[in-house]
């Protein structure tokens, strides 16, 4: 197997194949950076065009786009508080406050370095451990996946913001949106109001763009003369190599977030946003100064960005070996493979080693290229966008999101839906309802519900099937430790002075 890996290398280094990765990364950064356009969309638009191309050229472009977009999403998340992709929501938590205090340039440098590190770690795992890790995927049936979703949902607690009631209402809204569509297990239509367009559920990009991109764009139009402080635009990005030494302190976060990203990647159906949320929470929990988080802590950007790139290549592990994509981007990439007659499964590795291992190399190169292509030049160019007059910037964003949302399925229905969410988002913003719980609720709500019901059906409605096997028990234990642990610590800490007082 490792011989195959080496054998595939010369082919990948052919100029057309290298160029395709470079083009892919640049395109990916742009697509990710433009609100409303996502990697999933870019790759599905690309697929029909790759029909006549050499497979490695097509695959290289896709690998490049995936890596590029996962970083690109951070650019508007930091500069405008508009996550460019669903996975960049957690990046905006600390990235935007950093930009507001004039450290936006540094935030983007942290983001690009962390993205590259996450991507490299993920690609190496894909290259070296794909077959053994596919066995890990097999351990996760509906019951186990349900517990993973519960673990993810438990992190909503940390996203509720100042007012828990409002946070919970937000989360409930997200969960409600997630159940829209035809229910897999019974076939019933839920909350579709007779619209065929709603039967497949609501695409996360439609919701995300409505909630996150429209309200800030409206704000740009509402306050055209708002004089933003000059230093906010002065990103001050020097060479990335000079900034690098100041990031070495993040090595623990890089390591932890890479592991989380890789693990979430190999689980079917979870995906980049969950990886970023979880890794952000874990990094904050481990931090010595949790109070600075959410107010411009560079480590928060590092955690989110490492994780959302660390699940890229690892999401291809179950996709290539089992045909089950770990993320929605990996799902469309499978389509890109199929169009070249490459069917996932163990046979793929035997019949087309040059392509499969070449594709892995391309993931690695894509991640490394991020530092060069996404470094100071790209961030500086995008920062120039902020110099545009505010109404123009707002108008451009609105035009982009219309195009992006329309192109998902090629229909106006989604655009109207997005406008509806935009209205909701506008009022949520004014009434200070937090947005992150909506996103997490949407991602995990029906995901948890579907797997719970499937598990119960398989267990013939015996609830004990949920905790009978050891994989489930381990995940339950981790979840309990994370939720109950801090409470117990608090009780112990508060009891100690009490005891001494009684004496």
């Amino acid at each position: 197997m490792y011989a195959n890996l080496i054998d595939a290398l010369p082919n990948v280094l052919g100029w057309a194949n290298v160029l395709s990765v470079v083009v892919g990364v640049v395109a990916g950064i742009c697509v990710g950076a433009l609100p409303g356009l996502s990697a999933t969309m870019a790759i599905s638009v690309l697929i029909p065009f790759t029909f006549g191309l050499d497979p490695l050229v097509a695959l290289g472009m896709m690998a490049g786009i995936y890596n590029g977009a996962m970083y690109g999403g951070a650019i508007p998340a930091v500069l405008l508080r508009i996550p460019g992709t669903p996975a960049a929501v957690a990046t905006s938590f600390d990235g935007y406050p950093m930009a507001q205090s004039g450290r936006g340039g540094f935030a983007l440098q942290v983001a690009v370095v962390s993205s590259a590190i996450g991507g490299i770690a993920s690609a190496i795992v894909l290259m070296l451990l794909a077959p053994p890790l596919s066995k890990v995927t097999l351990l996760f049936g509906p019951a186990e996946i349900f517990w993973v979703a519960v673990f993810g949902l438990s992190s909503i607690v940390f996203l509720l913001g100042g007012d828990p009631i409002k946070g919970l209402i937000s989360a409930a809204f997200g969960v409600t949106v997630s159940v829209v569509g035809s229910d897999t297990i019974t076939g019933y239509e839920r909350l579709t109001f007779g619209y065929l367009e709603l039967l497949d559920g609501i695409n996360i990009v439609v919701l995300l763009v409505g909630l996150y991109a429209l309200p800030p764009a409206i704000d740009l139009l509402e306050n055209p003369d708002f004089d933003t402080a000059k230093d906010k635009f002065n990103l001050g990005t020097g060479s990335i190599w000079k900034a690098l030494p100041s990031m070495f302190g993040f090595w623990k976060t890089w390591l932890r977030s890479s592991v989380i990203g890789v693990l979430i990647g190999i689980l079917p159906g979870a995906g980049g946003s969950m990886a970023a949320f979880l890794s952000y929470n874990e990094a904050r929990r481990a931090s010595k100064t949790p109070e600075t988080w959410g107010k411009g802590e560079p480590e928060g950007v590092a955690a989110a960005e490492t994780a959302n790139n660390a699940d890229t290549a690892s999401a291809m592990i179950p996709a290539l070996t089992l045909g089950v994509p770990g993320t929605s981007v990996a799902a469309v990439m499978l389509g890109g493979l199929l169009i070249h007659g490459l069917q996932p499964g163990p046979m793929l590795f035997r019949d087309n080693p040059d392509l499969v291992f070449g594709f892995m190399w391309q993931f690695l190169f894509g991640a490394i290229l991020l530092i060069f292509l996404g470094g100071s030049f790209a961030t500086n160019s995008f920062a120039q966008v902020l110099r545009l007059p505010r109404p123009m910037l707002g108008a451009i964003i609105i035009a982009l999101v219309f195009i992006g949302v329309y192109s998902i399925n090629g229909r106006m229905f989604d655009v109207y839906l997005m406008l509806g969410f935009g209205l909701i988002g506008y009022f949520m913003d004014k009434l200070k309802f937090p947005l992150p719980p909506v996103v997490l609720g949407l991602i995990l709500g029906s995901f948890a519900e579907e797997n719970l019901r499937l598990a119960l059906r398989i267990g013939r409605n015996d609830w004990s099937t949920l905790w009978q096997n050891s994989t489930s028990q381990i995940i339950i234990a981790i979840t309990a430790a994370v939720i109950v642990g801090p409470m117990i610590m608090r009780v112990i800490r508060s009891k100690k002075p009490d005891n001494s007082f009684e004496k």
Partner: protein
Amino acid sequence: MKFKTIVTSAFLVAAFASNAHAEYPEKKIEIIVGYSAGGGTDVMARTVAPFLERYLGNGATVVVKNMPGASGQIGVTEVANAEPDGYTLGTFNLPGMMARTLDRKADYSADSFTYLANVVDDPNVIVTAKDSKLDTMDKLMAAAKEDPGAITVGMSSLGGDDHFFLMRLQSNSGAEFTIAPFKGSAPARTAVMGGHVAMGIFNLSEVLGFREELNILGVATEERSNLADDIPTFSEQGINVVNGSMRGFVAPLDLPEDVRSALLDAFQKAYDDPEFSKAMLASGNPVKLTLGDDFKALNQEQYNFAKSVWETTPWK
């Protein structure tokens, strides 16, 4: 009576239109696919397109247009409502397209189309994990009869070919199974391999790449499949069930006769081209051609079965 009117009007339209379409095709032909780019049906359409171009001649151009949504329903409705001029064709999946007219409000029916060619027939198979004790049909059926409902079946969504296969199996054998519908075949296959469900129902092309991980207990064809002639059919094992997933092409109703025959002719020639089967198989589409009226009859047969299932045991 109604059939007669349709036939007469079809003839009238055909006679009227035959002059206008003297040199079909004279502009680009669009194939509407009701699924996203890169899906099984999409890849089939894109594989077929160049062969259609070649055998239609006249410098024909065939492009694929994706209109995803509502498990193909949005795209197929678009085809039903399109102009019957031969420049809008669509992909058509069985039994799904007919089942949707039963379990949902649909703006099309079996009578909305001119049936051109069914090109893919992917038979159902039953699989168990390699380390499962249920490694023959006899053992599986014995276990299912011993404790009705104890055998859990992983499959893709309800109202599809996997589901109808199971219904046929149950009525044929009297055994009872518990259905676990996953979101698509790949997650279901993974659940079988991981031992989370006892068996799985898939299509042959979906499991051929996993023969070292799965036991394939039987295939639902009349004769053994030439893709894997070591797998016994179910009828060889005393269970008379033939079922599968079918993919083909339709046009709107009342397609002019000369256009129809040009298309049928092109499909026949494509099918006879050995390159075609090879290209289709590489994309996971085992070919079997059913042309024109035979395709229409096949569709009717599928509809009748779906209807009988729906009336006795509705799946929602």
